[in-house]
């Protein structure tokens, strides 16, 4: 503001700079000076028609990327008329049952120019099949589709718990999507390897870092088993991290993540392509750090967390709304959350210099220490897998090792809130103001559930049942042969208007169902 001229980056002449291996200081030489992070806000609710309207508003406001939130039944591969879906249809996201809903979701949106992120895991292959079937029907070939499938099943067993099939069968589906997109969808990111949910479930920052990267290495090994080279796969993986409230620790976490990914992909997996070494990531502020008490304080928490993501060099960012400890965000709260990013981007000046904290004794040491501690965890996982990160991750899930560590860390943190060794403003200290009037929150009714069930009934009435049965039979027989890629059979079933629940149910008959042994 005072007119002092600023360099794009600072550092000693012989030091490491952003844009250089191992990318500790950032992926690009000039970072946000040349291009701001993407302000990608997650949306989805009610029926596909409702969400399509929201998507069009986002595009009209200048958005170039869509991010789809699905409801719980869809995330678990259930149709909206399934008895287990009661009370959940269209509540946490949009309900997608069949190709008809996919048509509604993207009606009037040009899929050749807009990128689409789909946050779904257990039924990720089915959702990709529905998306490809719709796009091709709308005249956009699969090769032109750009976007991301979350498709990170390992963290579902470890943390988020939206699983359907047993781990090994799920990994076969992940392998099929990696191979299919590598061969036929050059603009598609096959997996968003996600630490966000691991952290939200209670892991520490180091555990989030280590478990997430270990999962990333496991997917590289899975692709290698399918005959794909590391440089074919690694550039199509992106990452998704949490931004929690401990400011410097979070910044160090992102820097350590880039450094570890670069060195491990090169030294342990033989990657040569610089794009394989570069860890690109999306950040979301920490939902668990928000409080129901004095919820306006959540704006301040989210701003600090978002700033950590920016100073850590994130490629895209979602900021949570102040009312999320109470309900899904209201329109006003979501707008304030987006505006918070804009204040950081356009007012604060932090975007002018790349990695402004690089060279800080504290931040550099914290970065190295987090990387060291993550390597200790890598060794533990490798030991479980007898030298294989893939096997170690699966064994760790089957033996409740990840789940146990995450639960232990969550418990320790809660104890520190209960005994007052950690302060949460408005919760265990500074309580004046807790009796203020409640915020206006978003109310969702059961009307969407009824509408969606009627919609599904009409799809079932209007389709060719013989074609559906034939497509599902092909899917079932392909599923019994682990060498066969299931994507063609899924796309075929999607075109025949088989429902999500029918496709998942058909595979479940072959794969079985995962039941987590309840442990405390």
């Amino acid at each position, binding site marked *: 503001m005072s007119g002092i001229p600023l360099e794009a980056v600072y550092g000693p002449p012989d030091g490491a700079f952003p844009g250089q291996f191992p990318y500790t200081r950032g992926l690009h030489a000039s970072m946000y000076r040349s291009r701001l992070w993407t302000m990608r806000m997650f949306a989805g609710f009610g029926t596909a028609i409702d969400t399509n309207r929201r998507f069009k508003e986002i595009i009209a406001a200048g958005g170039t990327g869509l991010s789809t939130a699905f409801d719980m039944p869809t995330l678990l591969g259930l149709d909206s008329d399934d008895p287990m879906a009661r009370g959940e249809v269209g509540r946490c996201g949009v309900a997608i049952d069949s190709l008809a809903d996919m048509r509604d979701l993207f009606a009037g949106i040009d899929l050749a120019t807009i990128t689409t992120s789909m946050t779904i895991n257990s039924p990720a292959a089915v959702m990709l099949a529905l998306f490809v079937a719709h796009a091709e029907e709308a005249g956009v070939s699969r090769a032109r589709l750009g976007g991301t499938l979350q498709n990170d099943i390992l963290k579902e067993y470890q943390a988020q718990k*939206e699983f359907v099939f047993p781990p090994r069968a799920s990994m076969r589906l992940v392998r099929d999507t990696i191979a299919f997109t590598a061969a036929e969808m050059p603009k598609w990111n096959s997996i968003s390897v996600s630490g966000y949910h691991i952290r939200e*479930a209670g892991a520490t920052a180091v555990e989030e870092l280590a478990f997430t990267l270990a999962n990333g290495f496991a997917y590289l090994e899975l692709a290698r088993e399918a005959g794909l080279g590391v440089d074919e796969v690694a550039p199509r993986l992106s990452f998704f991290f949490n931004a929690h409230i401990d400011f410097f620790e979070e910044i160090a976490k992102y820097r350590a993540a880039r450094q570890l990914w670069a060195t491990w992909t090169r030294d342990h997996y033989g990657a040569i392509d610089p794009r394989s070494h570069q860890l690109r990531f999306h950040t979301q502020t920490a939902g668990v750090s928000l409080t129901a008490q004095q919820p306006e304080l959540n704006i301040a928490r989210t701003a600090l967390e978002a700033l950590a993501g920016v100073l850590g060099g994130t490629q895209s960012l979602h900021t949570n709304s102040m009312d999320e400890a109470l309900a899904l965000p209201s329109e006003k709260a979501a707008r304030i959350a987006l505006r918070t990013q804009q204040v950081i981007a356009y007012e604060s000046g932090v975007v002018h210099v790349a990695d402004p904290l690089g060279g800080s004794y504290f931040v550099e040491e914290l970065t190295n220490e987090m990387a060291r501690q993550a390597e200790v965890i890598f060794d533990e996982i490798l030991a479980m897998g007898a030298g294989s990160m893939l096997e170690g991750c699966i064994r760790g899930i089957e033996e409740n090792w990840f789940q146990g560590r995450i639960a232990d860390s969550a*418990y320790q943190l809660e104890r520190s809130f*209960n005994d007052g060794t950690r302060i949460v403003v408005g919760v265990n200290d500074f309580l004046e103001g807790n009796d203020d009037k*409640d915020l206006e929150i978003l109310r969702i009714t059961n009307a969407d559930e009824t509408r969606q069930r009627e919609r599904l009934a009409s799809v079932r009435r209007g389709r060719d049942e013989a074609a559906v049965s034939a497509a599902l039979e092909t899917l079932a027989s392909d599923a019994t042969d682990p060498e066969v890629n299931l994507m063609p059979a899924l796309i075929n079933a999607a075109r025949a208007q088989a429902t999500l629940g029918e496709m998942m149910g058909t595979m479940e008959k072959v794969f079985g169902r995962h039941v987590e042994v*309840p442990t405390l």
Partner: protein
Amino acid sequence: MSVRVLVAKVGLDGHDRGIKVVARLLRDAGMEVVYTGLFQTPETVASAAVQEDVDVVGLSMLSGAHLTLAPLVVEALRERGSDVPVVVGGIVPSNDLDELRAAGVAAVFGPGASAEEMVATINELVAARAG
């Protein structure tokens, strides 16, 4: 005799951080805790509560389905002749409290509820039921 609590996840909500932490905090307070695991139905929870002869049922709900599912759990318990109190923890807007109470939910613990508060409320409910 120590208080026996069944903690349960009903429906499709996989968020199990809160329920696991609360289960351990209740154990620390000397209660016996049984956990159903994920993806239960109101019927399986009610059956487990009767079979385990618990004093309280605790539901953890963070996906917004509490108004649909919590009353169904109360109903399923009463159909099985059980008057065991049902408490709910998680993301529950304050506007929903009256409706939950009317449906027979005995107490609701919002985000940030302390261990002492939960333990005290559960003990009161158990004492009131013992009459």
